[in-house]
């Protein structure tokens, strides 16, 4: 049995914890660079704003509908994610942190009323951290993900599913007829592993609902669509094929996390571990042709072992979007050095690459690290030396990469600064103010 714990509209929910005035208002969080919506409050969804909608296309809603747009504050989201994940871990013995806002929990051996336990964990995350979550429970990861989708949809659109599936949905205990009804009411595109292309092909074949897909013969599926979709169908039929830590990478973040065989308390092996995780994450990143803008490193002690408890995370901004293993490993090691505290027995660490962008839209201008393939190879150390000399003589930022834009107070691409909320939980100067 698996559970999927997923924060609702996660980035928006993080912002609302520290700005309660945003409650009830349409809010979007914009990506750092290309200015499109990467998280939407329910009110923003109700305005018809689509995922990844470009900011220029929805900007008019600021005036017309009171839309609030914020720049992504991954430092804040990373810390809030860390808090949420360590509470979600209390649901069962194993955890796979799948992305910044989702984790799968293995429920093997968990006794008692699972629904009650899940509701308690959900309440605790809401009360302690301030993040509303939905939890899906089922026999396989694909079904758990579907259950989570149902729990969320039931909450957002009352009447779409039976009300008892709201917020926490356990498909494993649903009577067979009710399960069929639920699968029939869900479009096939909602299934984990069915992308837009396969969705279209399935629709053309008359496979419209999840029930249609679940009733297909796995062998036929394999011949027509391959082994990946076959695995999805088997999972929908209740046969677990995807283990924890064995998931395909999501689009928005790539995570590589692992529990250690034995607790680690020294810095050197922790650095080795996160460097390796960064390398693995970099491979996944290149395979989906993306670049990472920031990298999150986290580590925590085991809640099940005696001794002092510690849970830390840090977001390392990358100098420029990259898929370079060395650059990412370096960033992960720097992050670990920064957050490491001696005297604790760490049982788990991980690396999450966030704010991904397509490698196809990489800015090529004054690319100071790697020449494009069609450019002659050149040695940039002289250029670097000249830049440093000029900046040393005439002041910082006199010459800089064109992609940086103007630096200092004259910076005009200030949207990132302008709309970015403070680092409420990670910088003492930035903590929220309480009026007295």
């Amino acid at each position, binding site marked *: 049995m698996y559970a999927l714990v997923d924060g609702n509209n996660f980035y928006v929910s993080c912002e609302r914890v520290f700005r309660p005035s945003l409650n009830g208002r349409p809010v979007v969080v914009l990506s750092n660079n290309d200015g499109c919506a990467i998280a939407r409050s329910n009110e923003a969804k109700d305005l018809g704003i689509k995922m990844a909608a470009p900011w220029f296309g929805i900007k008019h809603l600021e005036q017309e509908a009171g839309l609030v747009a914020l720049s992504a504050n991954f430092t804040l989201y990373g810390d809030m994610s860390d*808090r*949420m994940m360590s509470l979600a871990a209390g649901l069962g013995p194993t955890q796979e942190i799948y992305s910044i806002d989702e984790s799968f929990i293995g429920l093997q051996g968990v006794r008692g009323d699972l629904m009650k336990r899940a509701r308690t964990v959900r309440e605790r995350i809401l*009360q302690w*951290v301030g993040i509303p979550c939905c939890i899906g429970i089922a026999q396989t990861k694909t079904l758990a993900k579907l259950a989570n989708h149902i729990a969320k949809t039931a909450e957002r659109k009352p009447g779409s599913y039976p009300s008892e599936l709201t917020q926490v949905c356990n498909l494993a205990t649903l009577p067979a007829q009710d399960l069929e009804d639920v699968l029939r009411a869900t479009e096939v595109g909602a299934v984990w592993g069915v992308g837009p292309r396969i969705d279209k092909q399935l629709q053309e074949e008359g496979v419209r609902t999840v029930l249609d897909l679940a009733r297909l013969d796995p062998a036929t599926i394999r011949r027509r669509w391959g082994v990946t979709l076959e695995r999805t169908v088997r999972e929908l039929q209740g046969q677990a094929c995807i283990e924890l830590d064995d998931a395909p990478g999501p689009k928005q973040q790539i995570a590589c996390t692992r529990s250690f065989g034995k607790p680690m308390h020294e810095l050197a092996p922790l650095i080795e571990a996160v460097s390796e995780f960064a390398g693995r994450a970099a491979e996944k990143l290149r395979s989906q042709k993306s670049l990472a803008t920031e990298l999150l490193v986290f580590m925590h002690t085991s809640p099940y072992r005696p001794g002092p*408890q510690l849970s830390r995370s840090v977001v390392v901004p990358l100098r420029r979007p990259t898929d370079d293993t060395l650059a990412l490993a370096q960033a992960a090691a720097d992050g670990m050095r920064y957050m490491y505290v001696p005297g604790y027995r760490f049982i788990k660490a991980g690396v999450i690459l966030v704010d991904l962008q397509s490698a196809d839209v990489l800015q090529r201008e004054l690319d100071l690290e790697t020449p494009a393939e069609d450019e002659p190879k050149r040695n940039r150390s002289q250029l670097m030396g000249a830049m440093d000399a000029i900046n040393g003589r005439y002041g910082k930022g006199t010459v800089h990469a064109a992609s940086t834009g103007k630096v200092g107070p004259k910076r005009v691409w200030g949207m990132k600064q302008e709309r970015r909320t403070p680092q409420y939980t990670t910088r003492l100067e930035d*903590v929220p*103010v309480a*009026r007295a």
Partner: protein
Amino acid sequence: MPVAPVRAGFPSPAEDFSVNRLDLTQILVTHPQATFLLRVAGTSMRDAGIDDGDTLVVDRAIKPYHGQVVVAVVDGEFTVKYLHQRAGRVRLKAANPTFPDIVPRDGQTIEVWGVVSSCIKRFAV
């Protein structure tokens, strides 16, 4: 027959005293996932020893009850006050006679964001 543990070798005189040095985080933070720091702006909690510029340790895991210092959300902003809960009515009381109580208007609720567990006051050094 009573059995006593056998001691071998000469024990270090400090052995029984080897302890961890006091750690302020462990002392001040009971629920790390639920603990946030906030800065105080204003003088309404002066008589409770909470002054302008102090740093509050706020624990969201603690269930708020009558008489505690809490951070509440009033008109979308954080405010620090005493929580006063009597006869099913909730109000927020300042610790400074020049500030009136905050009483919820009809239909308005007071949301307690977290309970203040400590106040950190730093001096010029």
